[in-house]
């Protein structure tokens, strides 16, 4: 269920616990800000903490610094920038 909520947040770009009466503009700005953070990788660690892999009991949860290096090593070991 928690995963579904997280998924719903991904889709809607809404922060949990905020009143629904926020203005349309602030909601759009919040969604844009979240999308920008997701796009550039700023929110990658938060996403990792929400992931099933990090939340499984057997897994060692990486620190922000460990996660950052681990993620970069993976990303730049396969083609990720094109011609």
């Amino acid at each position, binding site marked *: 269920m928690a995963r579904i909520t997280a998924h*719903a947040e991904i889709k809607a770009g809404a922060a949990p616990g905020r009143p629904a009466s926020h203005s349309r503009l602030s909601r759009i700005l919040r969604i844009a800000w979240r999308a920008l953070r997701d796009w550039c990788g700023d929110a990658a660690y938060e996403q990792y903490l929400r992931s099933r892999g990090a939340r499984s009991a057997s897994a060692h949860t990486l620190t922000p610094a460990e996660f950052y290096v681990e993620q970069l090593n993976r990303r730049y070991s*396969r083609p*990720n920038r*094109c011609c």
Partner: protein
Amino acid sequence: MRRFFSITAWAGVALLGASALGAIALRRGETLNAIWFVIAALCSYLVAYRLYSAFIAARLLSLDDTRATPSERHDDGCDFVPTNKWVLFGHHFAAIAGPGPLVGPTLAAQFGYLPGTLWLIAGAAFAGCVQDFVILFCSIRRDGKSLGQMAREEVSERGGFIAQLAVLAIMVILLAVVALVIVNALKSSPWATFTLAMTIPIAILLGLYLRFVRPGRVLEASIMGVALVLFSVVAGQWVANSHSWSHLFTLSGIALTFAIIIYAFSASALPVWLLLAPRDYLSAFIKAGAIFSLAAGILFVRPQVLMPPFTRFIDGTGPVFSGKIFPFCFITIACGAISGFHSLISSGTTPKMILREGHARLIGYGAMLLESFVGVMAMVAACAMTPGVYFAINSPASIVGATADAAATTISGWGFPLSAQTMNDLARSVGEQTLLNRAGGAPSLAVGMAQIFSNTIGGAHLLSIWYHFAIMFEALFILTVLDAGTRVGRFMVQELGGRIWKPFGRRGWMPGILMSSAVIVGLWGYFLYQGVIDPLGGINLLWPIFGISNQLLAAVALVVATTILLKMGRTRLIWVTLVPMASLVTITMTASYAKIFDPSPRIGLLANANALAAQIAAGTIPAAKLGETHRLIFNQRLDAVVTAVLALMILVLIVEAIAQWYSILRRSREPILHESPYIATRWAEDFSGAAHGDD
């Protein structure tokens, strides 16, 4: 009623697009506003996306949103990350959009604006987007497997090995040609060289900040980095005006070649967080900003297109690169219409992050349409400058002469009026000593962009700042392709070497890292060096080989896609991938044959080598130039062999695939499809769509 309005609206879009295409195609002798290009492209893309991609999604691929994607099944927060479709669209676009769609159309503008523009639009809609979309779908259905793995499983073991070798070979040629574009842009330009050099300490500073001060805080670090880079663009002017500093940063082509080789070796061997990744962050932000600014600038300025629809160079005698309109226009445009390299991204990171199958349409097909639009904008920027200026910047000294007077006389003789004063004034206004003989496309694109930007903000006195901003933007993300590509190439060399000697394949073994980095840098560095010393400017030599290899990789991707679709029983609709595949094979094989065997020394590599050998035999080469000429002969023959080997490898793969197709169609063998088994998504309750405003 709603349906009626929908049909009417789409018919209107189609009609508007057809009118704009008609205006572009049928104008003769009158000036044409760039806005027609934007309307024609956008309307064509909308119609292609609405109709053709929907047809492919529903009828050919039968996308299934109830099926769990790899990101749901393997969600580990590192590789497999469920991602919002618009965010993933941004990721995918940032990954596929490189220098190709900017440089290719700029070079192809030598044929006139029409052939390149039509191929950019039609090629993307019917070939490039189809390739990206279908390969993304195939990889999603196979847990995010790579193109090589899919070729091995679905075509043959040998097919997979050929695909792997082809990727490595293409990577080597790609890195050499993009490095050559940078060398030609920075040659004898202290301002541009200083700006680009400054991005190295800035990236290292960011790398240390992101590693030790605020791990992973990419946004704040990138904002600081972008501010520093923009400051270095302005500071470059002070460097150029200082006698001692400008001397330090005025480098020849050879010196720049070695500087770039040393840089790429370092970026490949150093920890990725120190230099490569922070530079990539900088590049991504500046790339996105510059592309959107260019689009906004074109809409705001609405420049007149001064290049004719066709030039006299469709006969193959062009000064920028030689070869007839068929097949060389298609080969030169490359990534703006279809790029084999995209299939590596579509079978790499993206399928591991996609939330549901239905998103593949927007991400696979839609992102490629946007890339094609970048190509159209580059074409507009190139064609909006005076044709004489365009040819003066992009032609080598051996054809137009090394001085402004000589270039003006030659180019005016071709029917494109140009005065020496125009070139001198233009160079002065952009803060350069000269803009002559800057083959490669980057400087002419920078001039076009700077003219558009300065007409939007700042006027003529900011032209030099905008020019160097554009050069920095191009060089920065070309360097990102270079260092990221060198690192990936290093892993490929280690993997291949590990088959012969196990320790070499270990990724953490330092001697292996250094040796493999040296091998990959040495390979592309050699091609770069031969491009720099080439009397015709190198682009004439290397860009067509790059285009051929890139399009051949696209043919490989479409062979794999066709095989998978046949195994899925989609025989009646197989033309969707078969027709673009057959077209690409025809184009690339014709181009390969011409590059190797054409009797004209300016086109055929062997003819050029033989002509030089004949000159040596006749004693017309001065003794001092004998060594250089022997090297040129060797290089031409080497390039002919490389082109032939690439073409042969792909032919072998095609023959293997045709044998497979025959047995599937004859039903002599039960087709084995290596798809992951169906697992229903756990997010099924979200699929009503209404809850999240999906699609």
